[in-house]
């Protein structure tokens, strides 16, 4: 850690404790009015108490400024409380860090981190792991699938939060600049992960979504199983692929809501079953 300078007011132990507190409690008090506000204050309170132990008025104001509305993706956003603690420490040391700067920094960072965190951590990394895990157990119910997901997800995400929290503290506001300045690197990671995710998810979708035509064409002695003799000849799984793409088209291009699509699938299935086609 870089913060081992002699005039540091906080010890490594203080930061470790706050990092654990953040990992466990970040989302614990979520509500519509403040979102993660109360939990944020809960995480930084022991730090504030130590920094402002000789100044009760400042301590009170610090508690109040961290009770404000705060909302981001908590896992990638672990950098932000680290940065905040570094700024509070600088303020307690008498450096020129205003209350507004601290609050504004938090507010400026939470949006971008929510965007990147939601799309990368929750929207891409988690589905990739879930897809691989699902493919391990979809057919035979092998418990290795969910266990694989639990171990890989938990280890990587907790380690990432721990690293980001400490990085945020040791680099202070530079950590955020580093994050945004290296836009080309961030873009590369995003593109790479998205591409990898799309291939893997396509693979798992093919084993999950299924649609089989039960209807058989009968003419005299000739029986043609539409599924076996036509669709499987074109490509196994071509029908569910077309249906998945249709659903995507309706959702993305025609702006149908998820509820409307669920209803459409239910009606479609009912009609197909009633007609004896599927």
């Amino acid at each position: 850690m870089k913060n081992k300078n002699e005039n540091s007011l906080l010890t490594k132990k203080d930061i470790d404790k706050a990092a654990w507190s953040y990992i466990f409690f970040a989302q614990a008090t979520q509500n519509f009015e403040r979102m993660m506000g109360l939990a944020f204050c809960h995480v930084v309170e022991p730090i504030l108490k130590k920094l402002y132990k000789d100044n009760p008025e400042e301590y009170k104001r610090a508690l109040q400024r961290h009770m404000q509305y705060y909302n981001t993706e908590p896992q990638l956003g672990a950098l932000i409380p680290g940065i905040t603690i570094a700024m509070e420490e600088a303020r307690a040391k008498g450096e020129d860090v205003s209350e507004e700067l601290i609050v504004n920094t938090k507010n400026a960072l939470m949006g971008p981190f929510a965007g990147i965190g939601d799309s990368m951590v929750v929207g891409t990394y988690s589905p990739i792991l879930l897809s691989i895990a699902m493919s391990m157990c979809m057919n035979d119910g092998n418990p290795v699938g969910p266990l694989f997901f639990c171990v890989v997800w938990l280890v990587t995400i907790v380690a990432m939060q721990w690293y980001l929290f400490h990085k945020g503290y040791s680099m202070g506001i530079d950590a955020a600049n580093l994050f945004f300045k290296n836009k080309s690197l961030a873009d590369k990671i995003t593109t790479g992960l998205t591409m990898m995710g799309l291939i893997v998810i396509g693979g798992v979708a093919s084993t999950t979504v299924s649609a089989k035509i039960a209807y058989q064409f009968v003419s005299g002695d000739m029986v043609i199983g539409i599924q076996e003799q036509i669709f499987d000849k074109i490509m196994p799984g071509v029908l569910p692929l077309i249906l998945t793409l249709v659903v995507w088209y309706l959702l993305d291009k025609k702006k149908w809501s998820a509820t409307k699509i669920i209803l459409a699938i239910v009606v479609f299935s009912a009609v197909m079953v009633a007609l004896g086609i599927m």
Partner: protein
Amino acid sequence: MTLFQAILIGLFAYLGSKRTPWFFGVAGGWNMIGRPLVAGLIIGIILGDVRSGVIAGAMVQALFIGQITPGGAMPADVNWAAYIGIPLALAAGGTGEQAVALAVPLSMLGLGLFNFIMTINAYFAHMGDKAAAKGDGAGIHKATYLAAVPSFILRGGSAMLICYLGTPLAEFLINSMPEIVLHFFEVAGKLLPALGFAMLLKQSLAKQWMIVLFLLGWVMIGATSMSVTALAVFATAVALVFVMAQGETKVVAAPAANTSAEEEDDCYEE
């Protein structure tokens, strides 16, 4: 389902809901225990049928794989879908298709509970405000811990009660269904996951041409006997080749920016 089993399911439903700190916070709770895939294993163990539990979990998971919850706005309640849909289907002797069929309406009904908890929990933020105004740090912690109580009662309690009381009804429904209705659930249960993947596609497609990657993955698994783990390795290679071919110069610039920023230690000038 015995009362004890229902209580255990309620407990895990709470541990997998959004506001639980107990197991590595949001990473271990909502994003892990709360995933239908993991719920399927847990419920399978509790009900004594791991195989069916895991399969049902994977099928319900497919339905919700494209769901992210930006800013706490939830399109559907995964918690009820997983912790009520799967146990009810299993306890009634059903399979993954029935779990999916139950999960869909439950995920919509559960949304009401989600919004209710998100609303009443603002009470604890006000409790925290009062503590902060008095400079009372212990009061902040107390408000944070107390905020777990409504979640515990409502999340755990609702899953436990509906699982326990709903089992006979679900049993009756599944057993008295005519063959054609059961077949309908089978067909719909296997088609509904298309929505999950379509949602994921909608949010992941940065550029339109990337849809080919989805098609590539589909064809590779659908037409060959390749495992998804092998496909993941292949996909990583494809992504790396693409990213690397995009331009080497940018990669060189990145570490340079890294070191220069690290040299400045405590600068908050801006």
